[in-house]
Each structure stands twice: as structure tokens, then as C-alpha cells.
């Protein structure tokens, strides 16, 4: 008895030791289960589809390999002469139909559940633009932009890439656990697509229209996704980062955001009250320019052809301040030039315009004050 048990145990141990790495290899190859009930159901539907295909494939390819072996000329010199059989054809038409009908059931029920966006606890308006996301919490009014946080140096292979290369955002979307969250997805310019694989949520962001999706996330953590619709040169560089926190922490975070907004507005009041010098504004302007403007207009202000015009010697950057202010604050319709008024503070806008008007070959000598920007809002 003991030897059998011992043999069984070691056999099992060997099996597990052999199997585990394969399981983790298989896990690396598989669609992730995700963290929501829906994402796990979707993984199961994926498995169902996969297994049907594998089984049918094994059978069909098995028959093919067999016939290639057994019916090759050297083994089977005289070919048969049959060329039809209604019965056989009927059977191999019917069986696939039945398999498909069976597959359709779980897919249909899951789909009906996915498309039911009712009874949500929290609504987030997600706006995609080139190349970032804006998140607005409709209940609390909090709104901010989320840009890629991976440094350009890593992309240009000047620095080693960190663990979350291209999946890091500066201001993640923060969500509570165990609440039904409704995502309203739209776009300011071209079609983007908001996708978080761990939630199995993917909805296209279409300009002028609103799409809906929902998720209930039971597990706190950080989840990452990417834009899933070609949207121009930054398509691969607009990640989605979601931080899910337990409800108490989430409520605290909302409070913190409110306080931060007030502080920012306090800082903004202070900025407006002061008269800034060019020396003070230029470094702020340069930092803002590099972070937001240089990707299109280039660090040297020379732009890229007519699509991203040069700011150096440009009519707007050397012309009327009001036009320059309008262009930066309101953007230009039907182009990639966005309205920066909602994204940047008065100080940042004043600084970046001052920087543009006094850099490279531009030397207007103009100094724009944050109060001027404020009054133009």
C-alpha cells in the first residue's frame, strides 16, 4: 500500500512539476481572464470558440494527414472513382450548423448582459483626442487630462525602458470597487477607442456621438490599456491607466481632487494678481512647450511641413497677441490644433505664448500676463 501511495505521490508531483510551467506558458498565450465577472465570461467564450476550432482542426487535419499518408500513389496506386454522396454531404453540413447554434447561446446571453448599461452608480465621460484622454466625473464635476507618462528618451532608445513602457499615464482614471460604473465615450477629433483588457471594455470614441459601456470591478489595483483605433501618429502613445480603489479610499480621492482644484484656483488667483517678468515666464513657457507643443511643432519651433506649421517667424507668433491667444486657447477647427484653454492654466498659457513670441528667431518682446488669459476665457 505504502509503495503505491508513494509512487502515486511522486507521479503526481512529477506531473505537476512538468505541468505547471506549461500552464504558465499557456497562460502567457491565452487571453487574460481579467478582473471582472464579465471579462471572465468573455474569456470562457473565447475558450469555447478556441476548443471548437481545435477539435474540428484536429479531426480535419488528422483526416488530411492520414489520407496524404495512406492514399499516396506509392501506397494507393489505383484511385477510387466516387465523386459525390448526398448523405455524407448532408451530415457534414448539418453537424457544423448544430455546433454553431450551440456556440451562439452563451455568446448571446453574455452580449445581452454587456449591453445593459442601466442602473449605474457612477458615470465617467471619457473624451479621446489626439493623443490623450480626458476623464470627467459627471457626479462630482472633476475633470482632467491623462497623457502618456513614458519619457520620450525611452521611446528614442536613449534610456532603458521601464516595466510599464508605453502603458504609463500621468493622471490615471480613479474608480471605486464594486460599483457599476458607466463609461460614456466620445472624441474631440478623429475616432479613437478606449480599451481596458482587464475589464473587457472596448468602445470606439466617435466625434459627435456618445457610446456607452459599463463595468463592475471587484478587485483594487492598477489596470492598463491602450487606444484601439488608428488615430494618427500618436495612436500607439495614448495609454489608459485605471486605478481602482476600495470605496472609502475612492471617496477620499474625490475629496482630495476637490481640494486640489480649489488650491489650483487659489494658485491661479495668486498668479493673476501678480505681474510676471519675462525671465520668470520663459522657463515655465519652455517646460509647457516641450510637454505639450513640441510633439507637433518641434522643439526648435520649425514644425513639420504645412501640417504642423513652424512657429518660428510665423504670422501668428509674431503678429497680434489676440490672434495668438485665440489660436492657443480655442484651437483651429478641423485640424489637430486643440483648444488648450481647458487643459492648461492661465499661467501656463501666458508663459507658453510669451515663450513662443520670444524664442528662436521670434523676438517680439511681448510679455503676456496670466490675467490677460483669464479675461479671455
Amino acid at each position, binding site marked *: 500500500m505504502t509503495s503505491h501511495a508513494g509512487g502515486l505521490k511522486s507521479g503526481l508531483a512529477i506531473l505537476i512539476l512538468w505541468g505547471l510551467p506549461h500552464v504558465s506558458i499557456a497562460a502567457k498565450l491565452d487571453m487574460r481572464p481579467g478582473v471582472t465577472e464579465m471579462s471572465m465570461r468573455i474569456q470562457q467564450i473565447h475558450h469555447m470558440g478556441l476548443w471548437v476550432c481545435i477539435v474540428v482542426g484536429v479531426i480535419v487535419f488528422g*483526416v488530411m494527414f492520414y489520407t496524404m499518408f495512406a492514399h499516396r500513389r506509392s501506397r494507393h496506386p489505383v484511385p477510387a472513382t466516387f465523386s459525390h454522396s448526398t448523405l455524407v454531404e448532408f451530415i457534414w453540413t448539418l453537424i457544423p450548423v448544430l455546433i454553431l447554434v450551440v456556440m451562439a447561446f452563451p455568446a448571446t446571453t453574455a452580449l445581452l448582459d454587456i449591453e445593459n448599461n442601466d442602473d449605474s452608480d457612477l458615470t465617467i465621460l471619457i473624451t479621446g483626442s489626439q493623443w490623450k484622454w480626458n476623464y470627467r466625473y459627471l457626479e462630482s464635476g472633476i475633470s482632467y487630462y491623462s497623457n502618456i507618462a513614458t519619457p520620450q528618451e525611452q521611446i528614442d532608445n536613449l534610456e532603458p*525602458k521601464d516595466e510599464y513602457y508605453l502603458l504609463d499615464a500621468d493622471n490615471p482614471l480613479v474608480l471605486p470597487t464594486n460599483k457599476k460604473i458607466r463609461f460614456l465615450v466620445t472624441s474631440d477629433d478623429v475616432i479613437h477607442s478606449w480599451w481596458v483588457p482587464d475589464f473587457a471594455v472596448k468602445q470606439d470614441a466617435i466625434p459627435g*456621438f456618445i457610446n456607452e459601456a459599463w463595468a463592475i470591478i471587484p478587485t483594487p489595483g492598477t489596470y492598463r490599456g491602450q487606444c484601439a483605433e488608428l488615430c494618427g501618429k500618436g495612436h500607439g502613445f495614448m495609454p489608459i491607466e485605471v486605478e481602482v480603489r476600495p470605496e472609502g479610499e475612492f471617496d477620499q480621492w474625490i475629496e482630495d481632487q476637490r481640494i486640489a482644484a480649489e488650491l489650483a484656483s487659489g494658485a491661479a488667483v495668486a498668479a493673476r494678481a501678480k505681474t510676471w517678468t519675462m525671465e520668470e515666464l520663459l522657463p515655465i513657457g519652455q517646460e509647457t512647450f516641450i510637454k505639450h507643443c513640441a510633439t507637433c511643432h518641434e522643439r526648435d519651433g520649425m514644425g513639420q511641413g504645412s501640417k504642423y506649421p513652424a512657429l518660428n517667424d510665423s504670422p501668428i507668433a509674431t503678429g497680434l497677441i489676440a490672434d495668438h491667444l485665440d489660436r492657443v486657447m480655442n484651437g483651429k477647427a*478641423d485640424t489637430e490644433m486643440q483648444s488648450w484653454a481647458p487643459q492648461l492654466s492661465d499661467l501656463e498659457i501666458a508663459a507658453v505664448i510669451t515663450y513662443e513670441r520670444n524664442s528662436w528667431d521670434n523676438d517680439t518682446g511681448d510679455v503676456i500676463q496670466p490675467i490677460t488669459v483669464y479675461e479671455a476665457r
Partner: protein
Amino acid sequence: MAAYADTANARHHPLIAFARRWLFTTNHKEIGTLYLWLSFTLFFIAGGMAMVMRLELFEPGIQFVQPEFYNQVLTLHGLIMVFGVVMPAFVGLANWMIPMMIGAPDMALPRMNNFSFWILPFAFTLLLSTLFMEGGAPNFGWTFYAPLSTTYGPPSTDFFILGVHMMGISSIMGAINIIVTIVNLRAPGMTYMKMPLFVWTWFITAFLLIMVMPVLAGIVTMMLTDRHFGTSFFEASGGGDPVMFQHIFWFFGHPEVYIMILPGFGIASQIIPTFSRKKLFGYTSMVWATVTIAVLSFIVWGHHMFTTGMPVAGELFFMFATMLIAVPTGVKVFNWVATMWRGSITFETPMLFAIGFVMMFTIGGFSGLMLALVPADFQYHDTFFVVAHFHYVLYPGAIFGTMAAVYYWLPKWCGHMYDERLGRIHFWTATLAVNLTFFPMHFTGLAGMPRRIPDYSLQFADFNMVSSIGAGLLGLTQILFLYIVIKTIRGGVKATDQVWEGAEGLEWTVPSPAPHHTFETPPIIDESSVP
């Protein structure tokens, strides 16, 4: 034209004679040759673009091309492969083979045939020249969704639109020619149900072309008016709708992908019986399965749009209709296998490619079925899983089908046998390379890698490296193929008229190489000759 070559003038000006022969030919064999060489040339160009993409994707980070240029390369790669490689190759095969297969002396409209071809070099020169225009080439993917392509497209977009119109006109005229030829010029006794399956699949494909290429023309015209003439078809600000673009585009786009495979089905249906020495199993159901696939192809377009906010009823309809297409497609696969079953099979190069076609196209079909399941599609859509799917059906599908046809019929065209040993090397390295390149893409897609990105996060690195290595090898196999083709044309073992022991069909009753004019008198169709 051959007569012109004999004149004294031609002897003194051989270059002009050469140019006039090829510019003005109305001979279906010569036009077929022109299409095939155009396709092969563009295959190298679009393939080169794929090499650029795979080079950039070899490792994470931006090393070789900037994201903007990458987007241009990926757009042109898709456009040229679809419109410049697969479609012209199949048209070239149609031109060469359909008249011979039905016992006709030529196509019904030979001059239009010439014009259909000669539009294309101009169209592709225009398209490729956009790389050198201000703002660069089109950079919005071969599917050119609005408003990225309308409001935000570069100036070259207008030339892209013109190029698409030119290609569309060429395809439509070609399709009309094929239908009129098949309807009117079959030799007496060749009823529809006696036509070889390659003729049937092209007959059905031609109807698909006439129905959907004009829709493509319509949508690029709408793009043009949106861009320059104040309309707002796709612009919400003017009351338009970007999603409508996708509906109209895919109404064209889905039948288009069947246009790109049905002739391949026809080719497999010619080759497999020959090398199994057994008639095609279930001829009638093969014809009806093809018709069913063609009809169903019109009602599944929405499966490209499951994440656009489609209502549930629409999603369910398109899911069910798409799953349904698996049935006639499966029937075809089973029929090919049944053809082989208890045959007497040899594995010359055409047969290798045909079998590879059946097996690997089926793998592509499997991922297609998985994509049809809407909830799962939410995780697959716009990832490399889709890229894997369509490259399996297009490369081991349409391209292997074309290569199989070339190996099969080249001896008939030029009178020499190709080098069998080299052909096998081509097949096996291509099969290895194709799987190395595209199979890992299933996994990167499942792991979460989106499409159309020039750079990716670190967890996708290993599989991308494998894909890139496979792609490099695949590129090399094309050079081998080119070498084999040229070598065969220049010389080799003389081909017999029959060429292949088990081959049946009218094309094998004419000499190899096929004379400039064949079937100037219609052949007598043997009552018993059902394909």
C-alpha cells in the same frame, strides 16, 4: 501583334515593336501575363513595405522610422496588396485560363481588356508617388476611416481617391468582361454545370466585383466632396456620421475579401483533383457553396464594427450571419479532403501549395469564427489577433493559391517544367516563414497588443521578434520564387501538352506553350466530361 513583329519595320526598331506589342495587345494570354507581372512587381514593393514595418517592430522603441511614416507605410502596404497584388493576380489568371477552359478563342471584349490592364500602372504610379508629396502618403490605414481620412487626411488623400477610382474602373471592366465571356463564349456542349470550378468561382467573383466596386467609388467620392465641396457625409458638425462611413465602406469591404479568396478556392478545386487523380468531390455543392458564400457576404459587414456602438439587435444579427458563413466554407474544405480520400496522391509543388492553402486557410477561418463571437470580439477587435486572422486567409490563402496556380499552369504558359526541387524548397521555407511570421500574432493580440502601432510595450517583445524574423525569411522566399519563375520561362525540361498525368480540362488539350491563338474553332465537348 505577332504579325507586326514580323514586319521589316519591327526588325529595324525592335524596341518600338516590343512596346507596341505590349501596349496594344488584345490577346488574353498576353494581357494575363501583363497582369501577373504587374502583380509580382507590386508584391515586391508592398512586401518591402512589410519589411519596413517588421523591422521597426523587431524591438520595442522607435529605431528606424517615425510613427508618421510608419502609418504611411502600413496604409500603402494594405492598399497595394489588396488592389495591386491579389486582385490583379487573380485577374491575370482569369485572363490566361478562362478562355481556354471554356474553349473560347479570347475574352469577349478584348480591347476593353487591354484598357482594363493599362489603367493600373498609372493608378499605382499615382498611389506610390504620394510618398513624395507634401504631407506624405495616405496614413490612415487601407480602410481609410473618416474623419481621419477626410478632415485630417494629408493633401495626397485626393490623389489616393483618384487612384482608387482608377483601380475600381479597371476591376469593374474586367469583371464585366469575364461575365460576358463566360455567358457568351462557352464552347457548344459546355453547359454551366460542366464548367471547371475555377471558371465558376471567377464567374461569381465577377458579380461581386460589379456590385461592390461602385460602392467603393461612391464612398471615395463622398470623401472628396466632404474634403473640398462642402458636404458633410461623415462630419457630425454638419449632421453627418463617421459610423455611416464604416457601414458603407464595409458593405464594399466584406464582399471584397471574398473577392480576394473565391478564385483561390477555384484554383484549389482544379489542382487537388489533378494530383489525387480523382474527380472533385461534390461538384454541384461546391458551386452552390460558392454562391451561398457570395450571397451571405453581403449581410455580414457589421462584424467589422462591433465596438462602434451598434445596438444589440444589430450585433446579434451580424454575429449569427457571420457564424453561418462558416458552413458553406466548411463544406468546401470537406469536399477537398474527400477528393483526396482514396485517391492516388502525388505531391508536386502545385499540390503542396494547394494542400498548404487548404490547411492554413482553415486556420484563418477558425480565427474568423472566433472573431464572430461578439463578446470575445470586444477583446480581439483592432488587435493583432485580427491581423493574424486576415494574414492567414490572405497569405496562405490568396497568395499560396496564386503560387499554386503559377506552378500548375506555368508549364502550359511557357512550355517548360519548373525545377521541382527548387519548388519544394520554396514551399517548405515559405510555409515555415508564414507560420513564424503570423502565428505569434494570435498571441500578441490575445495579450493585448493593438493594431497599427509602431511601438509596443515590453510584454509583446518576444513574439514580435519572432514575427520579424519570420517576415525576413518570407521576404527571401519571394526572391527564390522570382528566380524559379524566370528560370522556368528561360528554359527547362520541355513540358508535354498534358503536363500533369491526372489533369483534366480543355487547357490541357492545347500544346505547351499554348499558341498565341487557341480554340479559334470551338472544341467538341465530351458528354462525359464533368469536372
